[in-house]
């Protein structure tokens, strides 16, 4: 935490103002004046930050207390962070709804993810090399009950590729494994997927043959390196089906 900025361009008076502002002892007018100066003057800002770092450890003496749960829900409402509860309609409507939900989330999550998603959904304009809808395109949105999507997958049969965009809680102790869950028989491992980001998977012919409208995907939490048994061993955190777009 180096604070090696030379604050000597501040007057003696300004240096005291910084210390007393950080200490919190100023009356309203002076406090407001200092707050303004903090936003405008970088040296003053550094001086205040130095004092803040020195004084904050005193707050260790304060006993933590639980605020009522209403505080968090009010914060969520004020910032518009509350998601519309999913009413789970069928077919294309369901897909659009969940993708819109997802878009809202990823626009907030990061610009990169939003662009990646736009490429996933709209293909063409943002990815000129990609043929637009020359073959059947399939998309799956993987969710767990009542939460925002954990993954969106887009299958490009012509390229034998599946592009996936994930937004899951990352963990240093677990991996996430993506499975194809056939109507009958055991789940088939597709790949380990990153908790956050975009990945393009190359699919072999055998797997591709099983990926059709209605094919079900699931993501399970597995030990690092993936399931040791070749079958899901941890909890399934999201699932969804492939749909034509």
């Amino acid at each position: 935490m180096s604070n090696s900025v030379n604050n000597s361009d501040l007057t003696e008076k300004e240096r005291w103002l910084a210390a007393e502002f950080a200490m919190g002892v100023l009356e309203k007018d002076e406090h407001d004046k200092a707050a303004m100066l903090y936003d405008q003057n970088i040296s003053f800002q550094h001086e205040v930050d130095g004092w803040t770092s020195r004084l904050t450890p005193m707050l260790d003496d304060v006993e933590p207390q639980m605020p009522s749960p209403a505080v968090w829900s009010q914060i969520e409402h004020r910032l518009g962070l509350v998601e519309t509860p999913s009413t789970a309609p069928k077919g294309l409507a369901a897909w659009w709804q969940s993708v819109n939900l997802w878009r809202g989330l990823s626009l907030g999550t990061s610009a990169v993810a939003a662009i990646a998603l736009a490429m996933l959904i709209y293909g063409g304009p943002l990815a000129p090399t990609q043929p637009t809808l020359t073959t059947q395109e399939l998309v799956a949105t993987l969710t767990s009950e009542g939460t925002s999507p954990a993954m969106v997958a887009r299958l490009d049969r012509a390229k034998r590729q599946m592009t996936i965009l994930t937004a899951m809680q990352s963990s240093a102790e677990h991996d996430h494994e993506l499975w194809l869950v056939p109507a009958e028989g055991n789940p088939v491992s597709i790949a380990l997927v990153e908790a956050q980001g975009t990945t393009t998977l190359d699919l072999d012919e055998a797997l591709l043959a099983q990926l059709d409208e209605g094919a079900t995907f699931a993501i399970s939490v597995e030990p690092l390196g993936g399931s040791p048994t070749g079958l899901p061993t941890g909890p399934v955190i999201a699932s969804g089906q492939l749909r034509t777009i």
Partner: protein
Amino acid sequence: MTDAHRNISAQTLEYLIGRTALGDKSAFSELYSLMAPKLFGVCFRILREKQEAEDVLQDAFVKIWQKSDQYAMGRATPVAWLSTIVRNQAIDRVRSRGKPTEQIDDHFDLPDAEPSPEQQTISGQVAKQIDLCLEQLKQDHAQCVRRTYLSGWSYQQAADELKVPINTVKTWIRRSLLSLKECLGNEQ
């Protein structure tokens, strides 16, 4: 309350603030659950009124969400950054009341004891350093600094509460701040 007593690393908080700056709602939510009890304690200590303290906590977290991209790693510790937002919000509120904080006869008025070892330190090892530095001050000066800082008192309020002339309070605090700066150093 378990979260509040967990030792929260600066790296975790920095990561969560960084994710919040990217608009990651779940990171923000985790930041809230980790820090709200402590920060609410800070608000309540200043405002001494639950509803008002909750309003301030709410405003402060709205600000944290909005200003998270301005958090400059390395300049201030994440705890210093978060608690400054909360403290300033609470002090703004208490100053605009225009009258001194009502004294409630509760355990918060007890003189602040030295922190017990099992008490959670939100700012890590520096906590011990400031206690050592405060110990070097005259006892009533150290008490004055501690109580004034934790209660969010202005010079005038501190004078009223401690029943000493305002100029005395000013002198005590200014002298103490100089000693603390010398003791704690410039490099934080």
